[in-house]
């Protein structure tokens, strides 16, 4: 194929990637508005943060087609993949501890049951150590 044809292919591929990324951003907006509780909204919100962003960056890289800029875009993706889990972890933990998680919507809730088990175990140990009985 000639260079012209390759350029067209890259442009079409980049258009598809950009459309995919924009659609994921829209889906996140709908999800964060419609979903019932914090964890479900977090689930919707993380779609454009990783997959959507990477699609948009691939689309941009296919349009730019120059070495230095593409490496900077790889850097953007790496930074986002490093920071998104940190933010999600902090928000999820704070949400769980301040009671923003609706347990009636959860299918599996291992954290609560584990915490109850640990509390019961600690309680039993404290009674064993008590010298008065």
């Amino acid at each position, binding site marked *: 194929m000639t260079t012209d044809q390759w350029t067209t292919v890259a*442009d079409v591929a*980049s*258009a598809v990637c*950009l*459309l995919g*990324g*924009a*659609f994921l*951003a*829209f*889906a*996140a*907006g*709908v999800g*964060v*508005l419609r979903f019932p509780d*914090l964890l479900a*909204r*977090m689930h919707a*919100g993380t779609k*454009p*943060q990783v997959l*959507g*962003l990477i699609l*948009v*960056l691939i*689309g*941009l890289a296919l*349009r*730019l087609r*120059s070495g*230095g*800029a593409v490496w*900077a*875009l790889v*850097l*953007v993706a790496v*930074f*986002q993949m490093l*920071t*998104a889990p*940190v*933010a999600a972890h*902090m*928000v999820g*933990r*704070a*949400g769980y*501890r*301040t*009671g*923003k998680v609706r347990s009636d919507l959860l299918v599996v809730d291992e954290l609560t049951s584990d915490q109850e088990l640990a509390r019961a175990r600690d309680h039993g140990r404290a009674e064993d150590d008590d010298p008065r009985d």
Partner: protein
Amino acid sequence: MTVVVVVCGVLLTAGAFLAVIRAEKGPSMLDRTIALDIVVTTMIAAVALYAAVNRRADVVPILVVLSLVGFVGSVTIARFASVEPEGEGRVRTREEIAAQEAERIDNEDYAEESRRSGRREETDEHHGGGAEGEVR
């Protein structure tokens, strides 16, 4: 390419707008944080779209900065999230704010009166201390 740009722009704008509606409705601080995270992500996508349309490689540093700074807000807010009473996260109406303000001023007046009508006997000083209801 023009059609793609218009469709992408509409989708991004709609997504950001819906996220802003969620940020307004709340109900808690963390929901607003997530919504504003989505707004930042949409902004990154919009800048990338602009760069792709005009083939401008010089806006790529903006993407790097946004992807680094975007998470600072949510981490900071999550660190100081506390148990909010029912209805606390709601945006109050003008009348409610006026009523609360009047009550606060009344309380201050009362405190001022009682301070003037004789030195208060309590001498314990306040040295700050830990924030209440903070997540540790």
